[in-house]
């Protein structure tokens, strides 16, 4: 046994050495911005602390990237990043067959990237990933991916460059069936624990999608828990009494919500369709927490096909109306072509990277439209316009809980274990 562990340690050390050797690539890996306490950067490429922001420009990166083999591989949880990569290649004269974008869910992507980088298998150069908690603890802390931005990105994105660069914000809101839930009926998050809504609140299974788990984790932060306690009083009229297993009001809500028969679905789209299905005959007061994007697409007045579902969402809920979480853009430690990856990243924060220029095509020949007209996706570059009718990120942030990847990483296991024990 001992021998085995020794062997394993040796392998790990060896990998560590490799890691050190690789980081000599010209990529400045840390930022100038003052690090928040307990920053993940500490583990990244120790000893290369650079005080200034990377000044390399897009053109330089693109040139270097083209010289470095033209090849670029990305993994993304979001399909638009894949389309964007194709458009990027077509636009800048990179052989389309040299770029490869693959859509992979967050859980699989984390396992895959961690294994690939740690074992030195060629994989992605750049990843777009949600679920900050696991990204921080399993990829960033381990040094498998690192946060990078240059001056151009910093100018466009600002504070959202740290701790991890936000490419895209997504938000989840509480939607309800307009057939069975009255307008203004749901105003307080504690409704989900109310017996009269038993078995009617749906959300995507947090064990299947990390960001939903992160939403629950964020509810348990001291600040949010205090707001939850206030909201409890507003809803039930009495001060909250915590169960022995619940450290604060956030936990209490999670427990009560589960025990109230929350429905844990497979996909936001399916949930939206279930809730707003005009053909259903039961008069259940359906509601759910899903992404705004899926809500908009399913809504009856949506211009998009199929969109005949009778839905609305809660605009102002006490204490929070939902969750806003980023999809981060990060570079892998063993990237074959970090320069091209960086160039792509810079381009993504431009307007044409976000919504296309109207002419550049994707692999299948259709014109790249990116995020244009898409509700519920907001560029890290907040100067880019949001879809008509949608709110800007700054507005959303006021009414939604934000994912703090550092806090979520630290408390994720606690909440997961807590949920495991709820019956």
């Amino acid at each position, binding site marked *: 046994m001992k021998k085995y562990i020794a062997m*394993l340690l040796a392998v790990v050390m060896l990998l560590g050495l490799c890691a050190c050797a690789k980081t000599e690539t010209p990529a400045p890996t840390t930022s100038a911005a003052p690090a928040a306490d307990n920053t993940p950067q500490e583990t990244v490429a120790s000893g290369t602390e650079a005080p200034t922001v990377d000044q390399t420009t897009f053109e330089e990166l693109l040139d270097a990237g083209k010289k470095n083999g033209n090849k670029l591989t990305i993994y993304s949880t979001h399909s638009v990043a894949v389309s964007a990569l194709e458009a990027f290649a077509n636009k800048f004269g990179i052989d389309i067959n040299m770029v490869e974008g693959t859509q992979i869910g967050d859980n699989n992507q984390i396992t895959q990237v961690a294994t690939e980088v740690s074992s*030195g298998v060629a994989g992605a150069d750049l990843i777009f990933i949600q679920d900050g908690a696991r990204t921080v*603890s399993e990829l960033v802390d381990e040094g498998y991916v690192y946060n990078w931005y240059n001056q151009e990105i910093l100018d466009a994105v600002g504070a959202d460059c740290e701790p991890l660069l936000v490419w895209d914000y997504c938000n989840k809101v509480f939607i309800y069936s307009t057939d069975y839930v009255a307008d203004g009926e749901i105003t307080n998050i504690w409704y989900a624990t109310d017996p009269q809504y038993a078995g009617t609140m749906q959300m995507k299974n947090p064990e299947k999608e990390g960001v939903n788990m992160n939403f629950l984790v964020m509810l348990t932060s001291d600040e949010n828990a205090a707001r939850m306690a206030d909201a409890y009083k507003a809803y039930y009229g009495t001060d909250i009494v915590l169960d022995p297993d619940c450290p604060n009001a956030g936990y209490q809500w999670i427990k009560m919500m589960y025990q109230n028969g929350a429905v844990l679905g497979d996909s936001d789209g399916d949930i939206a369709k279930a809730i707003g299905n005009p053909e259903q005959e039961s008069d259940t007061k359906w509601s759910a927490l899903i992404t705004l994007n899926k809500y908009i*697409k399913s809504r009856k007045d949506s211009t998009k096909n199929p969109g005949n579902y009778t839905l609305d969402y809660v605009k102002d809920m006490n204490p929070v109306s939902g969750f806003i979480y980023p999809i981060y853009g990060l570079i892998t430690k063993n990237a074959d072509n970090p320069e091209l990856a960086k160039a792509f990243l810079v381009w993504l924060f431009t307007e044409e990277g976000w919504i296309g220029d109207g002419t550049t095509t994707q692999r299948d020949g259709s014109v790249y439209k990116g995020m244009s007209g898409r509700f519920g996706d907001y560029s890290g570059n907040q100067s880019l316009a949001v879809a008509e009718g949608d709110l800007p990120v700054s507005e959303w942030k006021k009414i939604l809980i934000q994912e703090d990847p550092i806090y979520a*990483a630290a408390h994720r296991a606690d909440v997961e274990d807590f949920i495991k024990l709820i019956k």
Partner: protein
Amino acid sequence: MKKSINKIKTFFSKPYNILLIVLMVTLTYLVILPLFSIVGDTFVVHASEKSRVGQPVGSFTLYHWLRAFASDYSKILIWEPLWHSLYTSALSCLVAIVIGGGFAWLVTRTDLRWKKVLTKLFIFPYIMPSWTLALAWRNFFKNAVIGGAPGIFTALTGITIPDWFAYGPFPIIVTTGLHYSPFAYILIGGVLRNMDANLEEAAIILRTNKLRMFTKITIPMVMPAVMSTIILVFSSGMSSFAVPQFLGLPVRYYVLTTEMYSTIQGTNPGVGYIIAILMMVISVGIMLANQYMIGTRKSYATVTGKSANISLFHLKKLRTVVSLLVVLVVLCMSVIPMISFVLQSLILTDGNYHLSNMTLDFWIGISKGGNDYQDKAGILRNADVWKTLFNSLKLSFTCAIGAGTVGFLAGYSIVRRRGSSLSRFVENLTFIPYLIPSMAFSAIYLSMFSQQRGIIPSLYGTFALLALIGTVKYLPMASRSGVNSMLQLSPEIEEAGVIMGIPWWKRMTRIIVPIQKSTIVSGYLLPFVSCMRELSLFVILVTANNRVLTTLLFFYDEKGWAQYGNAINLLIIFIVLLVNFVVEKLTGASIEKGVGGN
């Protein structure tokens, strides 16, 4: 000294000795070593566990074992899934035996109508992927629990399906039981058909009434077949992943495999590896129990005799009614699921089955440039699907060639040296992968091959890893059929060639292979088809660049893209049926004959 060198020389002058040694070394590396590797992995901190264990990655820890067996979480992580696994598997056996055995009795012993067609259709689920019925069940009885529109049944009747009927143990048991009832039919039907009619005639002469005959003679006679059915269905049920994943998760009903998947993909792989070990222990336990039962004095392998025309039981007035009932059950098992897949792959808005809501877009539509599922190209026009299909075929082909060839050579060399301890050791080695549940096996390979091992680089995410695990996992099928067929071939046939001085490879290609053609072909066919419909073996090893059809189906399903999922499922079924049909027509070997191999 010289003597012993000569001895070694003589030993290696026999090709089968060389084969055995090579097999011993390779299989030890591919089968035994990984077992140690996975045990080691249960004492190590993995990246995703760092924050919960509070130790650096790679350091030694007892955390996983303590958490699995001595914490508040043991119940939820181990005992409950274990109980669920045992419970659903046991009851699935019951369903399989009642349905399959009942059908076997009706077909062999009564004047049931339309026997020929019915038996063909009844076998159908056996050829299909194991989750087929589960998917169909969900298509029909889906309710609001997982979100999405209600299923076909509710759409047609307006009746809302209760949770217990739509999800959880009940549908798992029914669909698993039905899926494996062809096993029961083939095994029990085989006994009933070949059973010495004299045994029953002797009872008739001794004035046994019909009921007593059935309970005291017929049932006990088929008991061995029932037992093998139980062993087969039970272990298949224990290692089944897709069915509880589709039908159990919505109501948080976890079995060992799904719990293992969620821990390995989630934030506690260490516990996942413990579950894998637990599953192996159970599987070995089942095998030992089986062998113990075979070893008891009551066993009777030789129940066959000359089978006279036993008089059929006349259903009389009930004949048509019973026949129609059987037709209904058989349709539910074979045809109706297909219809549900077709329907589900055509509709635009979920839950609306009007013709106006149907489209072929999910099959042949062109890409609309958007990023939502209804914007994607139909599966027959989607380059990704074609790539995946090609990958699947390539993988199945590789595994079939690998497992089939190695299995045949193993069978040959094992039989030639039968009785020696080397031969016995290799035979056991080839059999071990059979004992390891697919998902546990892939967990092992994940832990073993995701790092560089000696001269072997990390195979994570490569096609080679999938091919390797498939080959090793399906080796038992091929080697067992190889052993059995070689046992029936007398060594004199080859010895006649030896005396005439024909070299070994020529003896193989000109004498042994042509004689054993049909078994060899089924030794290739079985792994091919199994691989084509395999999910649990690949699901945690496949990376996005190496998807196969089954994992693509799983991926679409997780995303909630039901139309594509159903279309892909049909594609898989179509290929499996096509291959089976072609091979059956060409060689006469068929999947059904391979029962017991899987």
